[in-house]
């Protein structure tokens, strides 16, 4: 009955095993695929149990909450874990075709496993300090993955990424310390329960705001996002995609977790701040993208912008808004990963990410073009893809909450997102390739392994189409998740009353 910890232990195990077998490249590749497959399998199993029972609580070591570390997986956590599995598997597949041998020799696969472990750990834990630990696991795995190529841009980007994220970690840690000083506990449910008993919540608000800053940095919210556009376009494409899909979402997840279950004592104050953050994040991210002319840079800025939508869902704090936020997270993880992976194929073929040097892909690779168009239009919120419903729910929530300003921003940002996506489309796919007779991409890159890459992309694109055409069950999941988030009492009872 330790299913809740499986999403952590599986990648940890495969990561450790890959490290132990560091000499054998083929073993690493096999473990890469098998490990992510198993992760997805346990994630789905966990999801099924959560779906059936509402929540899965595991007191690690048999120490009942709040004594030990308790893993508490509710619907949101389960969804996130499944998404982790999906993304992990897609990246593993893609990596089969795209990872240079020397990267495989120097820990690419172990780092990938452990990054997934950190991500999954963040999603399942119900302990605030344990969350810090998984954040760090994730963070340092990402540091290492970011710098794996040793290129100049990677180094420059990594310095910013590392420094700003460490600042965030320091604030996170300080906030945990202060929270412990105030409430004497680390278990989220226990914290939530105790906060409910506090009359003067001034200090609680202070701590809440600190968490907001710390997670805001991790989530790359305005004005704390600098590290992301500075670094996400630099590593291997598979790594970029993994980061883009999952990492910032962990920050968003943490905001969702903390600002529903735990810090729901003064929504008028805390979530009002979040509304502003959401609006400015959307806007500044999308404007950043509009100024870019490099494939992955555009995509990177759009992560920022899209984070704004998710935060908006949280900030409006109505059931529908939270549903929208959760839906948006699900959609965005898949779509963003896909887009980055597509950039990997174009890079492989044309050897550049610069829009001006790319072109001719619609002519030469119609399949890839379709596989780009689907997530691109989905990202821009075009129907009937997943992004449309995600945006629609958030906007509807915004309208119903009469949050006119931020809703208008959300709409405008949708338009500008479309602008960016069509920019990529026009430059990379429509335009004839520059400097070639045929107008087709020059094709310096080897096409070995493209099959793996296409498989990953096609699988994810199928997911976004599936979510789009089949929104109802996904919505139902988001609804369950939102319902649980908005009723912290159930969470608290489930955690504190569960027996080991």
């Amino acid at each position, binding site marked *: 009955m330790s299913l809740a*910890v499986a999403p952590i232990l599986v990648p*940890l195990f495969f990561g*450790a095993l890959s490290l132990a077998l560091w000499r054998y490249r083929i073993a690493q590749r096999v473990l890469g695929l098998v490990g992510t497959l198993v992760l997805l399998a346990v994630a789905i199993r966990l999801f099924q149990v959560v779906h059936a029972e509402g929540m899965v609580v595991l007191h*690690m*070591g048999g*120490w009942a909450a709040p*004594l030990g*570390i308790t893993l508490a997986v509710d619907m949101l956590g389960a969804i996130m874990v499944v998404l982790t599995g999906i993304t992990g598997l897609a990246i593993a597949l893609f990596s089969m075709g795209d990872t240079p041998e*020397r990267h495989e020799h120097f820990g690419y696969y172990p*780092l990938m496993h452990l990054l997934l472990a950190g991500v999954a750990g963040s999603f399942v834990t119900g302990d605030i300090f*344990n969350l810090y*630990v*998984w954040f760090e*696991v994730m963070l340092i795995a990402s540091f*290492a993955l970011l710098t*794996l190529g*040793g290129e100049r841009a990677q180094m420059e980007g990594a310095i910013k990424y590392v420094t*700003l994220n460490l*600042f965030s970690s320091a604030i996170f840690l300080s906030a945990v310390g202060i929270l*412990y*000083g*105030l*409430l004497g*506990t680390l278990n989220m449910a226990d914290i939530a329960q105790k906060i409910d008993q*506090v009359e003067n919540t*001034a*200090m609680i*608000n*202070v701590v809440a*705001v600190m968490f907001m*800053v710390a997670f805001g940095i991790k989530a790359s919210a305005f*004005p704390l996002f*600098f590290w992301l556009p*500075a670094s996400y376009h630099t590593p291997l494409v598979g790594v970029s995609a993994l980061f883009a899909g999952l990492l910032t979402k962990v920050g968003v997840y943490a905001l969702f977790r903390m600002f529903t279950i735990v810090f729901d004592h003064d929504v008028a104050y805390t979530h009002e701040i979040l509304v502003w953050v959401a609006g400015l994040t959307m806007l*500044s991210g999308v*404007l*950043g*993208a*509009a100024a870019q002319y490099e494939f992955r840079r555009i995509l990177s800025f759009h992560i920022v912008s899209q984070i704004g939508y998710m935060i908006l869902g949280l900030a409006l704090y109505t059931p529908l808004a939270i549903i929208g936020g959760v839906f948006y997270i699900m959609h965005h993880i898949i779509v963003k990963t896909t887009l980055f992976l597509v950039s990997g194929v174009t890079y492989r073929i044309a050897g550049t990410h610069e829009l001006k040097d790319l072109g001719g892909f*619609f002519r030469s690779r119609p399949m890839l073009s379709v596989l780009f168009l689907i997530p691109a239009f989905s990202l821009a919120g075009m*129907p009937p893809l997943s992004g449309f*419903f995600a945006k*629609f729910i958030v*906007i*509807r929530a915004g*309208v119903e909450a009469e949050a*006119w300003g931020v*809703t208008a921003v959300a709409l*405008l940002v949708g*338009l*500008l997102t*479309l*602008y960016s996506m069509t920019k990529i489309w*026009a430059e990379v*796919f*429509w*335009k004839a390739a520059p400097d070639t007779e045929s107008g087709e991409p020059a094709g310096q890159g080897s096409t070995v392994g493209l099959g793996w890459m296409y498989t990953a992309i096609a699988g994810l694109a199928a997911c976004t189409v599936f979510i789009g055409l089949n*929104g*109802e069950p996904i919505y139902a999941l988001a*609804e369950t998740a939102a319902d649980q988030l908005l009723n912290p009492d159930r969470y608290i009872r489930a955690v504190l009353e569960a027996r080991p």
Partner: protein
Amino acid sequence: MMLLAVLSGFILALFAPLICRVAGDRCGWVFALLPATLFVWFAWLLPEVMANGAQVVRYPWFPAMEINLDFLIDGLSLMFALLISGIGTFILIYAGGYLKGHPYLGRFYVVMLSFMASMLGVVLSDNLVTLFVFWELTSITSYLLIGFEHEDVKARASALQGLFVTVAGGLALMAGLIMLGTMAGSYSLNDVLASDADLLGHEWAVPMLLCILAGAFTKSAQVPFHFWLPNAMAAPTPVSAFLHSATMVKAGVYLLARLNPALGEAELWTLLLSFFGGLTMFTGAFMAITHTGAKKVLAYSTIMALGTLVMLIGIGTHYALVAFATFLVAHSLYKGALFMIAGILDHETGTKDVAEMGGLASLMPVTSVAAAVAALSLAGLPPLLGFVGKELMFEAVLDAPAWQMLLPVLAFGAGIGVMVAAGIIAIKPFYGKRLETPKHPHEAPVSMLAGPVVLAGLSLLFGVALFIPEQTLVAPVVASLGGAAEKVHLALWHGINMPLILSLGCLVVAGLILRFWSRLQPQLDVLREGLGRFGPEAGYFRIMEWLTRIATWQTRVLQNGTMGNYMITLALTTVGITGFTLITQYGVPLRLPVPDSGFAAGIALLMIVSAFFATGTVSRLGSVAAMSIVGFAVALIFILFSAPDLGITQILVETLTVILLVLVLFRLPGFTRMSSPLERWRDIIVAVMVGALMTVLILAATEVQFFEPISAEHVARSVSDGHGRNIVNVILVDFRALDTLGEMFVLALAAVGVYSMIRLKAEDQTA
């Protein structure tokens, strides 16, 4: 069945490339089977709907969000569906001929069929959101169609422009529809139209109206959003023909017509629609005569028609509604025909400029006749359906409730404009002196002729046999629009009345203009250029330019690459938001430090002095050395305050850190002073602010303790349950072993990261 009807286009689209490969040049005929079948089916539905009223067919899709594939079948939707499928049939056939041998014919049909299906979805949807879904799909597919010749930069720019404008409006529309749905309590159009709720009295009424109008106006190319439409001519002619005649641009008109029963009573609705409609009508007509490209002229005449339709909905009187329905049908027929003819012309002659053509009638007799008929309908001359539509339109504007004098004047001008345009299209290329063209023209193939001939023929047939459109199309539409269907009566001759006089006036003036058309050109060019400089399209370009400029500026300011600025922003944000919360909600708990242990205080002071020294010294190694004193001091603080494990760990870590540092620092440069004094002061201020915040936070946090820590239980159970006397270690390896597990992996990860960095470098060097 309905669902299949709407989605069949998408399904067929999936197989389009395959079919193209199999059927080869004749694939257009194959594809046309689908719309033809649909046409028959819709036609078959018509009598039933006329007899029993509107029907709603429901297919659940996303019921939780009230988003369902529900279809509303009534006169209005069926009329549109018939136009789409009917004209679509000929367009698909036509495209096969027009794009014969084109390498991307398969892709073309994929998008074209999707576009057709989307359009059917728009006009048939009962659900506001589903309608919007299809609405956006038309935007996307038309984007792909306009940009079909995508290696041409102009095609790409035009495609983007069309998409940008229509999606911008579309987003407003989405907000508007959400508001409407929320206000009405249902997203079903049928429910909205039947709703008892006081929609117009609701406080959201005005924003809702404006949002919906923004969507409709952009889609239907109303002034000032009209500019994208002529540019969309970059698309292959079959696309233009389809877009302009029966689809895309009509979506906005459809939506307005659809919502007219619910919203038509609003004064704002009447004012805005009739004003912008009238203005658009006039502008379109006027612009049409300033151009010489056949497709451009037609495009502006489409704008004129769209304006007319919108204006008529706005006027909303019985005449206006009848005029709307009649004009709509007439326009779809002649515009489809004329576009296909324009396509034939450029296909056969190799030029798009009407001014370069002349005397083609003898070479292309069938085309010239079809062109003449369609153009007469466009000009609004009897006995064609266009004439009836125009007469009704004059009738409507003459007793419009709003903009009393303005609308007739605009309408008169527009009447002149379309007549001139018709002349340009139908007379100029076919008659007069034979001009040499880049290609030697022949009569077009059957596939390309079928459309123009049939549509032009219908224009004539409907004009002569008015009862057919009256009963099958106009009356049902008027009923759907909330008018009195039984009062609909179309006639060619109403006696000598004001509309007829206006028509004659138009004819006279238009004849004069046509007579001197070539002489007017230079003046018109000047005028057009002036408008180009100040018109809405210039506005669009300015917006796009400003967008880029603002984006670049913002990025330069925020994402400027200067790490210091990033840190300052982060630090100040932290200080600002946390400090604000603390000060406003808690206060500033300043206390003076009174150490209870002088020695510990001394160590603490030593620590901070060393820390400052490490910060201030110009010697890099001095700094590292000072940091190890800081480390020792921290360890001592830990030890003095009862944390031996921490003390040991701190010292060990400090030692190993020094070792690591000296291994690496060796190859790094020394400290250099790079910042200006001003920057240093700025940084000091920021740093002090962060420090002050942390101090105040700790002071506050140590004042308050709401609950006893849970660790009392750790202490109590460490020996009995954890079997260990070092409570910290029991926590680390048992109570909270998961933390430690994670931490192990952190260390391992750091090692892997370090190793790969140095090893990959070593490989670089050997490589």
